[in-house]
Structures are given as C-alpha cells and as structure tokens.
C-alpha cells in the first residue's frame, strides 16, 4: 500500500479576504466545508482517502473560523453568505474545473444553497447533516451572540457538536475530546453559523438542479430529521439520492471517513455522465 498523500496548508485571497485551506492529492477537486464553529481539521481523515481515489481534496476554513479572517471583521450570519464565499473560493482555487462539493451541518446547508443557486458550476454536491430549510429544528440564537449576552452559548455549541456523534463514536472519549477541540470557534463565528441555519430556506429554489446531489444523514444524528431530508430530495427530484448511514451521527467525515470516501467516489463515478451532460 502506498503512503497516504500529505495534507498541505495553504492561503488564498478570496476577494481580498485571507482564507486558509488544506489541500491533499491531485485530480478532480473536492471542496469540503466544515460544521458550525469548527474548521478544516474535520476533514483531515477524509482528504487522504479522497486523494487515494484520484481526487484533489480542498477543505477551507470558512471566514471567521480558525485561520480565515472574517469578511469586514463581521461573522457571516446567513448560509447564503457562506455559499457565495465557497462558490468564489471554488472558482479561484479550482481554476475553472468543476469540483465536487461536500458540506456538513451548516456546510450541508451551504451545500443546499449551492444546489439552489449554482448547481451548474459543480460536478456533484453532497449535503451532509444539513437541511434545505433549517428553520424548524432549533430557535434563532442571535440574542446569544456575544459572550456577555449568554454564558451558556459556547459550551452549549461545543456539546451540541460532540453529543450528536453516533453512539459508537460517542463512547470513545478520545474522539469526543478531539471533536470538542475542533469546535473552539464556537462563540461569535459559531453563533453566526447557527443564525444562518435557523433562517435558511431554499426549498422554493430546488426545482431546476443541474448536477447530481447526494444527501447524507447519519442515522444517530438527532439534529437532522430524516423526514426533512427526504422532503428536500423530493423537491430536487430525480437528480437527488439519499443515503442514511447506520451508527453515524452528525459527522460522517470524522466518524467513518473510509465509508464516506467510498460513498462519494461511487456516487460521483456513477453520475459523472449526468454531470457532464
């Protein structure tokens, strides 16, 4: 077996905003977007597995998260802001080549936003643990954004992350601690992410999708009701597939990177003709 491809950290200017991303491998680009209050490290196990399968994995830190500056020193507070930023990032870093896009949680909502608004620019889009309309599953948290306004927000979001792991991973203390440490952008940037989740709704824009869409949900993830992702799949129509993963929670790329790499690779290869049509 060959050695795993190395992950290299890079910076790029996205419309003048210094943006960090991890890169691994060569081939068809795959743009990966992390969850609320987290960063590119969530994809550290997936990227080499994508590289093994002939992809160029690209995992960015969203603006205001970890090593990427916020735009104009303000956190994004809508999913559409994240989606437009990721679209620009993909245009700049992928050099005109259509990428696959994978996003998880608020990254999954971002993926749905790209499905709604820019599907023609992607080879395939994989929303994981996200919703086309995040509104019903939790309240709008804007009044908790600043530390002085809520002593609970940061620990709440940190544990909202780790407690939504699938039951096998939740029983692994080391993995729980690792994910907890990945969520240290939880206060203002993470709050902006969840403000975006709570107000996001692109359900009226899913009727003319130009690329294949694989909607992924961990069966143990309590944040994302299966009924709502199946509703989104119905709205997209024949270009959408749904995969529900047993024993997985809110973090498929962290909990089962091998299984996810295989799933994405199979989906892209099976649907490549559709994407290029």
């Amino acid at each position, binding site marked *: 077996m060959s050695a795993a491809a190395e992950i290299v950290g890079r910076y790029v200017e996205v419309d003048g905003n210094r943006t960090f991303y991890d890169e691994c491998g060569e081939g068809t680009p795959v743009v990966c977007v992390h969850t609320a209050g987290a960063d590119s490290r969530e994809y550290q196990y997936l990227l080499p597995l994508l590289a093994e399968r002939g992809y160029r994995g690209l995992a960015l830190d969203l603006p205001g998260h970890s090593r990427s500056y916020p735009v104009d020193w303000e956190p994004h507070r809508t999913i559409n802001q994240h989606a437009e930023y990721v679209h620009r990032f993909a245009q700049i870093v992928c050099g005109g080549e259509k990428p696959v896009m994978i996003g998880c949680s608020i990254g999954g909502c971002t993926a749905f936003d790209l499905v709604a608004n820019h599907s023609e620019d992607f080879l395939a889009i994989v929303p994981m643990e996200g919703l086309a309309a995040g509104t019903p599953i939790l309240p709008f948290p804007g009044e908790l954004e600043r530390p002085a306004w809520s002593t609970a927000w940061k620990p709440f979001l940190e544990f909202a992350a780790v407690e*939504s792991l699938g039951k096998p991973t939740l029983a692994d203390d080391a993995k729980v601690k690792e994910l907890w440490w990945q969520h240290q952008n939880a206060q203002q940037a993470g709050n902006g992410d969840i403000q975006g989740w709570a107000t996001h709704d692109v359900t009226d824009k899913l009727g003319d999708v130009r690329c294949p869409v694989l909607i992924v949900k961990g069966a143990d993830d309590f944040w994302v009701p299966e009924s709502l992702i199946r509703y989104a799949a119905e709205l997209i129509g024949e270009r959408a597939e749904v995969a529900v993963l047993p024993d997985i929670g809110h973090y498929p790329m962290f909990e089962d990177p091998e299984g996810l790499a295989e799933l994405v690779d199979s989906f892209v290869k099976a649907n490549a003709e559709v994407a290029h049509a």
Partner: protein
Amino acid sequence: MQIQDQEFRDRFLEALAADPEFEAEARWFDGSILLGYGDQILWVKVYRGKAIDTLEFVPVFGYTFKLSGSEHAWEMLGSGERTFTDLVSSGSRYLETMEEIEAAGGGYRPPELAIEGNGVEAGRMHIATMHLARAFARTVVASGVPA
C-alpha cells in the same frame, strides 16, 4: 423508590461525588438547583464543586435555577437514548411532517428538559448541569424509580 427517599439521594450524591468534571466545573458556584422529575422535586445545594445538601422542598430563599422534565425525558437521558443537549434544546426534531412541525411551534417548540431561573448562573453552570443531570438520570434508571 422515590427521588425524595434518602436512599435515592445518597446514591445520586455518591454518583455526583465520583465525577471530577462536575467538581471542576462547579468549583466557583454557590447556589442551589431544583430538579423536577414529573411532579416530584429535589432541591440540591451546590458549593465549591460539591452537592452538599438536598431537601424535598424549596426553602424560603428559593433556588438559583431549575431543571425539570417528565419522567420519560429523564429516563431517556439515563438510558442513553437521548443526549442532554438534545433534551434541553428547543425545536421540532422528532415530528414527521411540516404540518406537525409548524403546529408544534417549529424551532420554538419547548425542550423536553427545561432550564429556568437565573440564566446567567445556569449558563455558566451549563457543563456542570449536564454532569449533574446525567448523574441524576442514571441514578433514576439504576434505582428503578417508578414513572
């Protein structure tokens, strides 16, 4: 066994005393937490990381904050069926249709376990409360407290 029985209280406080993370998180808290288990209550005094007393009633000076829910909600926490975060979070996540979700209040549907009272104190005690709730709920399940 009922949650107000001395044997239950002893088991609960023993479980809590064995949790170093609770002690660390609650180190600078001086207040009281009222636990509501269905119609039953248990008042817990916490000082410098330790639960030092319990009462089966609310004393005249009240409590700092309250954590309450149905017997079923506590049992779901104690058995591991649901997590603390899931149970204390508002929102409609277990309903099948958009009509049901909207009728239930959408993102503002009340949580299974409600935190009420001094929100600033409850907020800084969020992780300690999670550990206390787990110890209480696991003791409920292990002790066979009837619903």
